[in-house]
């Protein structure tokens, strides 16, 4: 009767993510992309997804393949283009044509809104973006002489995150800056799938666990 969160294949690990789902994808600056799970999601082929991902275009992620396949209705991100000046990405082509919805948030608001969803907080005030275009249409309030913007939480139906080691309880460790958005996204989503380098047959020692298995539903051991 022991918990067994491992799935034998990436396809089994992402099974059930359906049309219209809000899917969170970890990864930033080249680290922490769950690319094998994203590839499996591409194969699964749900439509009308909302992606919650820091960058719509990062060249080391394969987020853009989901977008190019026409599976994505909306992207919530802090970066809707890359830093390079290369040809337009799949996102940019659809964006130019008005065929994909975009919500851009400051990165700190992006992740705090995800954290808020995981922490049961529907909305919070932040100083970030006050007085800028990204606060347009949002409620503003002054506390103690400073102006703040009301931001809403971002809950997910599924999160595909990358980690280093998992144990059978779903406890995770992360390798360096691979961690980034993974923990927050795991708290905010109903179905949390972790792609990991390795599985530990013994429990990860309590003080080494970086994300409690309480937040993790499925594990796919992808290797390095």
């Amino acid at each position: 009767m022991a918990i067994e969160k491992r799935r034998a294949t990436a396809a089994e690990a992402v099974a059930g993510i359906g049309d219209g789902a809000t899917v969170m994808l970890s990864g930033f600056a080249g680290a922490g992309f769950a690319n094998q799970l994203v590839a499996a999601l591409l194969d699964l082929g749900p439509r009308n997804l909302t992606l919650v991902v820091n960058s719509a275009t990062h060249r080391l992620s394969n987020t853009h393949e989901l977008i190019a396949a026409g599976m994505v209705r909306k992207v919530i991100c802090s970066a809707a283009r890359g830093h390079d000046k290369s040809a337009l990405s799949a996102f940019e082509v659809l964006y130019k044509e008005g065929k994909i919805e975009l919500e851009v948030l400051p990165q700190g608001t992006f992740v705090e809104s995800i954290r808020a969803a995981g922490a049961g907080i529907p909305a919070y005030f932040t100083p970030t973006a006050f007085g800028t275009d990204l606060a347009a249409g949002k409620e503003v309030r002054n506390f103690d002489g400073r102006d703040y913007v009301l931001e809403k939480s971002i809950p997910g139906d599924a999160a595909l995150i990358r980690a280093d080691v998992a144990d059978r309880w779903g406890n995770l460790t992360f390798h360096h800056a691979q961690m980034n958005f993974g923990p927050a996204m795991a708290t905010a989503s109903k179905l949390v799938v972790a792609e990991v380098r390795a599985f530990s047959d013994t429990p990860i020692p309590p003080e080494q666990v970086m994300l409690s298995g309480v937040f993790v539903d499925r594990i796919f051991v992808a290797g390095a």
Partner: protein
Amino acid sequence: MKPLNRLQMAWRVGQDIEDGMVVNLGLGMPVGVSDYVPQDFDVVVQSENGIIGVGPLASANAADSDLVDAGSRKVTLRAGATIIDSAASFAMIRGGHIDVTILGAFEVASNGDLANWDNRIPDKGPLVGGAMDLAASAQAVWVMMEHNTRKGGPRLLEACTLPLTAVRCVKRVYTDIAVLSVMPQGFLVHEILPGISRVELQRRTGAPLAFAPDCKDLITPDIALPEA
């Protein structure tokens, strides 16, 4: 005298970093500042992807694709470093725990308004990243930028023309020809490149300048840019 190159600008900013500071360095020119912080200083370089204590760039054989800064550069960790997740990293930023953030910019207004992100590149989506959080909440925002645009227009203005990153946040501006602070009354010049007169500096600036009583020459060592 020639305007400062980007390494000389980084050197000049580096002179104002104090021992014990927690600093966040923006993409582009600002990351270069860490090369000019005295080695014996315990400066903590925070990168918004969660690295608290970024060290020098990794050598090719020590590079680890998971040990990157927010600019995707493969880095090392300094002694005393740790790594936190993005939510905690931006909690640190938003909570005012960064002593100074050094950012590039397109425009700075005389009230401290900052414009350093753009959503006007044709056909491209906007990119904002963590700049708004850093600009809004760091204890000090220092800007490094060329004093003028490529077409010669001013970047220091009475009011920004580009979309704002944050309001009334910039404390200091380091350009290739001057060092200024943003005071309640507007820009105050502390250093000017030798050979540039106050009149010339004012002509190249889109807002009124005041000059500090101890305004002095902006002098840096010769630092050659690496071969392209």
